Each structure stands twice: as C-alpha cells, then as structure tokens.
C-alpha cells in the first residue's frame, strides 16, 4: 500500500488525497458550525474585527 502510494501510482493518488484533505477541512468546519450552540455561534459571529469605529461603539475589544 505504502509503496503504491509513494512510488507506483503517486501521480494519481497524491493529488486526490490533497483534494480530499482540503474538502475534509471545509466539511468539518461546516459541521462544527451547524452543530454549535446558538449562543456560541452568535458570539463567534460578533467577534470584533479590530476597527477603530467598531471598538469605540461596541467597546468589546479586550485591548481597549
């Protein structure tokens, strides 16, 4: 199996593995977001973006 992936058919296997890994990250993130409690989701959606104006109005920045 290892020899097949690394030597014999790496040209066909490695790009597909890369693609699957990329998709897995997106799918895992999506599932996590969908299963997240609403309160946590809202909190993450409202994380400060570091704008001066926003920090002044929301006064939520931990650095302020």
């Amino acid at each position, binding site marked *: 199996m290892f020899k097949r992936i690394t030597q014999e058919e790496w040209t066909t296997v490695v790009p597909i593995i890369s693609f699957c890994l990329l998709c897995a990250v997106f799918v895992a993130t999506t599932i996590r977001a969908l299963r997240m409690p609403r309160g946590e989701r809202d909190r993450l959606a409202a994380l400060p*973006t570091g704008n001066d104006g926003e920090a002044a109005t929301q006064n939520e920045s931990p650095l302020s």
Partner: protein
Amino acid sequence: MANATTTTITYDDRSVRHFMTASVIWGLVGMLVGVLIATQLSWWQMNGKFLESISFGLFKGEGLQYLTFGRLRPLHTNAVIFAFVGNMMFAGVYYSTQRLCKVRMASDLISRIHFWGWQMIIVAAAITLPAGLTRGKEYAELIWPINLAVAVIWVLFAVNFFWTLSRRNEPSLYVALWFYIATIVTVTMLYVVNHLSIPTSLVHSYPIFGGLQDGLVQWWYGHNAVAFFLTTPILGIMYYFLPKAANRPVYSYRLSIVHFWSLVFIYIWAGPHHLLNTALPRWLQMLGMLFSLMLWAPSWGGMLNGLLTLRGAWDRLRTDPVIKFFVGALTFYGMATFEGPLLSIRAVNELSHYTDWTIGHVHAAALGWNGFMAAGMFYWMAPRLWKTTLWSKSLANMHFWVGLVGILLYVAAMWTAGITQGLMLGETNPGGGTLKYEFVETLKAIQPTYILRSLGGGLYLIGFLMCAVNLWKTARSGVAGDESVEITIPESNREPMTLGATFFNDPVKLTLLGLLFMVLWIFLPPHADKAALIGTVIFAARAVYVFRTNKESWIHWHDRLLANHLPFTILVFAAVAIGGSVQIIPSLLVNREKNIEGRLQIPYTPLELAGRDIYIREGCYNCHSQMIRTLVPDVMRYGRSKVKDDYSHLGESLYDHPFQWGSKRTGPDLAHEGGELASGSTSMRLGKRDNKWHWFHFQNPRWANDDSNMPPYPWLYEGKTDFASLPGKIAVQSRLGVPTPARSGDAIEEEARAQGLEIARSLFEGSGPVSYEPMKGASSAELVRRFSESEVVAVIAYVQKLGSYREVHKQGGSEPTPLDPDSYRAAGHPEDKVPAGATTDAR
C-alpha cells in the same frame, strides 16, 4: 478660488438599467451553457444524444451538431466575457462616469444604439457559433461581419464616453475613469489587429496572420482580453463602487497612480506566457515570463488598495452583502493574480499547460473576481436605480455562500484534475524509455473531479439565479427613475496641455529613454546589449534622482494630465502600444519563410484545406492541440517513432491561417498525426493511423476506446464537402502568402475530387472494407462515389496531412538575424544551436 454656478443634472440611468438587466440574463445563459459543456466532458451523451430521452423519441441520433462541446465552448466563453461581463462593465461605466464627470452621458441616441447594437451582436453570436460559423481563434471566434459590427458599436461607445468626458463638470479625472480610458483604447487596438482577415464569403474568412505570427497575435489579444476587458474596467468599477459602498475614500491615491500605470504598461507584454515551451522563439517566451512575474506587484497593489479602503469598516462585512461580494471578489482577484504569474514560470507551465489547472485559474478569476464584482455592484445599484430597498438581504447572503462554495469546489476540482493529469502525462516506466499511461487513462483518472466541477458550476449558477430573482423582485417593488442632482460647476480654470507638454517632461522622457535602452538590450548583438543595459540602469537611476529632487513638478505634471483627458489618453495608448510592438513587429519581419531553416510546412491540398475548415467549424481545437512542446514527455507521447527531435518546429505551421496550437488538451495532441504519401499515391497520405481507423473513430470514438469522452460526428457522413468554395479560398490563401501552385478553379475542384475518390476507395475497396449502416446493400462503387464528396473524407484527408514538412537547408548555415535575439545566442553558443523554440530538454 473660482466662482461657481449651480445646475441640475438628470443622469441617464435607463441605459444603466438596460445594461444591468442584459448582463443578468446573458450571465444566466452563459453559465447554463458552461454547466452543460462541463457535463459533456463527463458524459458524451450530453453532446445531443440526451435529447432522445427528453424529447420522448422525437429526436433520434448519436448527437446533435449544434450542441457539441466544440461548438458550445466558444458560445460559453463569448457569452460570459462579452455578454455577461461586457454588459456589466457598460452598466458600471455608464453609472459611474456620469457621476464622476457630473454630467449626463453626451448622447442618449448613441447610448441606445450602443445597448441594442451590443445585444444584437450577442444574439448573432448565439446563432452563428452553434451553427459552426467561426474564425477558429479563442475568444475571437465571431465571423467577420459580426467583427465589423463589434468595431462600430465599440467606437460609438468610445465616442459617447470621450464626448461625455469633454463636457464634464469635474475638472480632474478620478482613478476609475483612467481604467475606463485604458479599456477603450486598448481593446480597440487588440480587437482590430487580431481580427484582421480576408473574407472568402459572407460567413468565412482567413486571418491575415499565420502559424507562429497568428499565435503571437492571438495570445497578445487573448491575454489582454483578460487584462483589458475582464480586469481594467472592473478595477475602475472597484475604485468607484467600493469606496461608495464602504463610505470611505480610497486607501491610497498615490498607490492608485502606481497601480494604474504599471498595470497597463506591464500587462500587455505578458501574452507569450500562453505559448511557453512551444515553437515560439525563446526570447519571446522569456519576455512573457518576466513581465508576467512583474505583474505580481501592480496586481497586488490594486488588491491591497481595495481591501485597505475598508479600514474602519470591516464590521460591515458581517452585515452588508455588497461589501461581502466586493471583499470576496478582491480576494479572488488577489489569488488569481498570484496564480497567473506562478503558472507563467516555464517550469511550472510544463506541468500546468494544456491541463485543467489553467481552467481552474481562469474560473477563479471569472467566477470570483468578475462574477462577485458584478453581484456586488448589482446589489448596490438596483435599489438606487429603482428607488427602493433590496428585496431580500438574506437571499443575497445565501447567493454569496452558495456561489463561494461553488467556486471553491470548481477551482479545487480543476487544480486536482490539472495536476493529476499533468503528472500522469509525464510519468515513465522504470528506465524512462516508455510512457506509463495512455492519454485516455489520464482522462479516466480525472473523471471524478470533472463531476465535482459540474457540481461546483451548478452551485454557482443556482447562486446567480438567486441574484436574478432578488434583482427582479427589487425592481418590481420600486419605480424606475433617473437620479437628478444639483451640482456646482466651478468656473473653468483648466490648464491646457499641448502635445509637447505631454511628452517633453521628465517623467515621460526618462521613462521612454529607459525603455528604449531596455529594448536595445533585448535586440542588440552581444556586448552592445550590455552597454544598452547600462544605459537602462542609468536612466532608471536618473529618474529616481530627479523624482526625489523635483517631486512637486512631477505631481503637478500628473495633476495637469488628469485635467486633460486627450493627452492622458495618448499616453495610455503609448504605454500599451510599446509592448505589443516590441514583441509582434520583429516576429512579423523575421519569422517568415525566407528565414526558416529546417522543417517547412507542405501546404494543404484543396481537399485537405476543406477538411481543415470543417475541423475548425467543429471546434476541434477546443480539445486537441497541434503543438508538441519542446519537452521530453510531449515528444515521447506525440512524436513519430522514427523521426528525431519530433517536437513541433516553427516552420511546420507557418501557413496555418488560423494557427491551431490550442490551449487545452482534453484529447491528445494531433500535430504529428499525419504522415507520408501512401505508396503509389500523389495526394493520399497515411499517418499514425489508417483511414479506416479514422472512419470508425469519427463515427463512434468509443469504438477506439471505451473511456473516450469525444462526441460522435455522424453528420460528417451526411454532409457534402463544399468544393465550389475552394477556388475562392485558395485564392485568399495565396494572397496571404501560402505558396499554392497556380491553377484554374476547375483544376482545383478536380484535384479535390480526385483525392476524395482515392481516400473513399481506400475505405470501401480492398480487404476489410468499411460499411455504412444507412446505405446497407449499396455497391462499393456507389459508396465510393457518395463518400468521395463527404465531409468525413475531407477531414480524414486533413488529419492525415498534419505535421507534413520538407527540410530546408541554407548554405553555410544561418547567420545572426537582426531583430532575432535567439540567433545571436545560437551564434555565440554553437553547442546550443537548436531550432527556434527548442530547449535542451528536447535533444
């Protein structure tokens, strides 16, 4: 301070609404065709056979000529570029130009003619392209009468635009207008040069350039269609609409200046990167690669200028779909303009070229940059144009996410497909003497990613459908109306600029001198070139010094330039004309028959020419290249076994009007598919495969290989070759410089028919004759007579001719040629002396 008067201006927003509506409709059409042709690469039945199922048997056949990939792919690209983005661009330009100039468009009549003329051109394209009426050059397929219509309508647009500029109530030109000016000037130049043709009939013409020269002109045009039709006008739109949407001024005015001038100057040189590792002279390949790498800087400068405009407004990204689309678009712009130069590196291009990697790159830009900029602009403009609010913000948000997932799926699938196929095509068996995979095996390996591509494209289409619904509902909920504003007209205190003042100043003088020495560095013989390089460095250093010591006068000069649109336009033209001239003019002078040493193409016989025109009509170039690159795997795969160094040489396609090098291989390269004259024959050739193989293959490609995705071509067996048009076509070829023997029209037709008979006899007579089901029971004489006039025989004649050449040797060898830097290199290094375009890989 000048005295000011006030006046009320009513903008022509009706034209904006028209263009925007047309863009949405044509966008849906173009994307739908795109999804259809994506499925055709997975299931050959989608080339027309599927109609049997959905028409409940009314349609019967293995395919329909109007629906094949070869004919629909040009429809897709033209619809998306010229219909979707074109109309979107016009909507953005009309909306913003009036407001930036504080004046209504100069002529309502011209605006109407522009709108309706452009739509008629699109309708004409939508009819002619599926009908197989094409010039056979990518993104330049439209036939010559439509080309003329495009030129007229484009000029009318230019007249209306510059007339509006001349009546403006705002003294200085804002950065968005600079980009619009560059678009109008450059597209005019590119379109005219690349469409120069000699007609042979009302619907057919041959381009005046052939072979390498046609390739160079085509990709100078093709690359810069991306630059000046899909990029610069959209950057102008970004510079206007993003600050408006974010309610912030643009991040850096100075960066805008650097971004603009460097982008328009550098972009135009990068075209040859579409022809890397081909028969294109090496010096052009290097220039194309270097200028592509230089493009990284201005492209990212523009992206950062856009993104940093959002400083202080990033929180709006959460709530405002317009900002969301603009940020998404700029991010894709940055990604695509990073990837473009990367793919232009010759070593990377070895792997990526002719594969789906390029397709993924193009779609990251088209779907991400153009599509999202269009959506953001539409969502911003629609409520203002119909004096209402956006019907559904959440639907717009949904559009964004569905579209984004669609793009990512599409692009990642194409990256995977391209890299997989590129790697597989280069793989050899242990020992390196033979290739590991057949072409069709590589195609089979990427089929799963092709299906994911269709899915991604489908998602993007669904997202855009949401946009269309949202805009439709928004329009229905409001009332169309033209905006009126009261403006202040400052008393004119414009400082006019003469032609002398335009050119004779430090910024222009030093730039032009530096460029002149850079060009001399490219073309001068050894040692003199080094002196020229020193000259370039001296003028560059001088420019930096003068700018540092005299900055105010440079700024003043540019400010004056911005108040004078004609001098500005002249300088833009100079900036874009230099690159094309340096690359194309020497090639037109040098790369001609008289300078060819080595392989020189044998011109086509009349029947082969007829077959070639059918090949072009069917859009075969969309899947089959005719360019064996100077790379070992290419030569091993497509070269002829008994011919040494069998890559495509410059002279082999010298008489091809148009060139057919292609840009993507969904099927194998065909450059050397043909072969020698058959024994005892004066015209019939036999290549890698015999005539019967081609007969069965065109009828059913699955006969040759189960995994082929090529559509069948049953109509070639029913269609008759157009012999009557051949004398006229050959006369035009002769005018274009193709060395055709002088003979009468009757002799040409007779010659074509004789060759057709010979090929038909080879099919129906002798051992193992082929059969034709609809003529079951017919005698071989009947079949020979019938098929000697058929299109399939003409195409077979053409395919069997591909790659035929004669050797030309010059006494005493070739001398260094002025305007051909490669010849100096070869003279200086005899051990490197390989024909133009060749790399050491091929030896």
